[in-house]
């Protein structure tokens, strides 16, 4: 009962009036959700937020990351300095770090990605492409450290863990503008 009340308050705060109607319609409906256990959630939810929320225990460094990258990633991605065109086409991970005055800038981690957490969040869920999640959390911290270092973001001796990673400021952290809920005036298409 109290849950219902919270919901109605929630819906009044929202601009969408039809929620009230849908609630009325739903009230007639039986409910089929089963309680989700922590185990269910842990299996399904892998997100890490920019402020570090949900970053796991573990720790990694650049040197270990370099070895792992060579072993696990180099068959598809070039190492810094390499230029196999097929590998560049799959995904160029190192590149221009200064985008000033370059209109067609390479969108690499150092030049483009606004949050350090995104690197860990992405590679842990998606890489190495043929076997994501086949490494440990510490391995993913090391790979993140290596990618950030070779993109000119952190020094060679930096250590990455759940406290240090979210503190890393990305060069392009101010490079993004929210188009939701409205595209800013200056980018509106004039007719």
């Amino acid at each position, binding site marked *: 009962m109290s*849950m219902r009340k*919270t*919901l109605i*308050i*929630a819906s009044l*705060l929202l601009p*969408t009036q*039809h*929620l009230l109607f*849908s*609630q009325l319609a*739903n009230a007639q*409906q*039986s409910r*089929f*959700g*089963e*309680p*989700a256990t922590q185990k269910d*959630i842990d299996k*399904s*939810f*892998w*997100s*890490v*937020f920019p402020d570090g929320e949900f970053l796991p225990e573990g720790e990694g460094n650049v040197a270990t990351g370099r070895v792992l990258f060579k072993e696990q990633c180099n068959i*598809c991605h070039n190492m810094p300095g390499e230029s196999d065109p*097929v590998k560049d086409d*799959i995904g160029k991970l190192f590149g221009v770090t200064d985008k*000033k005055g370059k*209109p*067609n*800038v390479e*969108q690499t*981690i150092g030049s*483009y*990605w*606004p*949050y350090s*957490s*995104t690197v860990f*969040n*992405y590679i842990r*869920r*998606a890489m190495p*492409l043929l076997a*994501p999640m086949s490494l440990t959390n510490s391995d993913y911290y090391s790979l993140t450290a290596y990618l950030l270092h070779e993109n000119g973001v952190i020094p060679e001796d930096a250590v990455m863990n759940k406290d240090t990673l979210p503190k890393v400021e990305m060069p392009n952290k101010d*490079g*993004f*503008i*929210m*188009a*939701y*809920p409205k*595209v800013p005036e200056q*980018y*509106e*298409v*004039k*007719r």
Partner: protein
Amino acid sequence: MSKDKKLPGIDTTDHVAKGGLLNRRLFLTSSIASTAALATASAAYGEDIIGEGQDDWTIYPGTDALEYSDRSRFEVENVKRFIPNFPQKFLDLRLTKYVARTPLDHLLGTITPNGLHFERSHQGIPDIDPDKHFLVIHGMVKNPLKYDIDALENYTTVSRHHYLECSGNSQVLFQETPTDQPIQQIHGLVSGTEWTGVLLSTLLDECGISPDAKWIIAEGADNGMMTRSIPIDKALDDTMIAIRQNGERIRPSQGYPMRLYTPGYEGNTSVKWLRSLYVSDRPVMSAQETAKYTDMMPDNKALQFSLEQDVKSIITRPSNTMSLKKKGLYEITGLAWSGKGKISRVEVSVDGGQTWGDAALEGPIHTKMLTRFRIPWMWEGGSAILQSRAYDEFGRIQPTRKELIDARGRNAFYHFHAVQSWGVSPNGEIKNVYA
């Protein structure tokens, strides 16, 4: 108007714009009479069997019914989603670009057959066993709940006609020189479907979301676990957990057994193989909402969360996989859509946008759905530039390519929605051009 171009029952002098565009009502009020001569009764056959001259399919029994029917074998070769070739080195690594586009030039109406719906994944199509798959809704909720496909099927579902378009559709048109790729390669990342599912508001209501909830983080169960943040207003509006497309269970390539579906939003936000919805007070800033699906502006800032799609239209016939064989009457037809609501008007020009005529819209017009338009055109054999321009019920007008590029530059990559031009040359060839 010379005699030989006179068509039975059609007044070809009722012009609505320059270049031969005719009043759209002409096709509606009078159908073009078939010119095929009716067979006349011939002389008696004597002792000949009467089936003489009939085709095999008329005089032999047909094949048996199939459990799941196929199209005609004569269609298979021509009507298909083109899968590009990849370097052997890619294939050796078990990589492709994981993309197939809809052959818009071969379709009429507004519903895309399930087997021809466009698809794009980042790391391939998972082969999910529905008995082992469930969706969890958790985070800022009173009761974290989970749903398998059987649970979802128990709800009163909604079925709605909506389009889905990849944010990268038509992106080659940002390039400096016009591409000569076929229409499917340019525009084929858009399809129309009757989607059936459970409104997400129903499930969120059941879980009891906190009044402080502002975003929902959706994650898939695929390799790579695609992740996008959806604003709560959208989640409570028309977002659904889709379980069926055109009546049948959604295909593995569309997210089997369940996907998020966000009508009118850029395609990538309709997260397939949906497994987790985390109710949050902020976006997660996943790779697909920072590194990808963001648009670089001329000042080197990037627009992020360009979610609701703009008003757009394309001419599908004639287009660059066809040519005009002879002078005469043609129908110009195509598709228009808006991520905000209904299409209210489509204009067509055959002189590169100098003069415009109103096209007829085929109803019923659904919100956030492809709308087919058509207008008759008398081609006199000269060069022409065919364009369409759509309006939605909120007064938004599709911009020209120049207007789009003036505002957003050529490095945006995603969200190209400007007017596109088919150039017709005097010999009837059709090419994508910039005009």
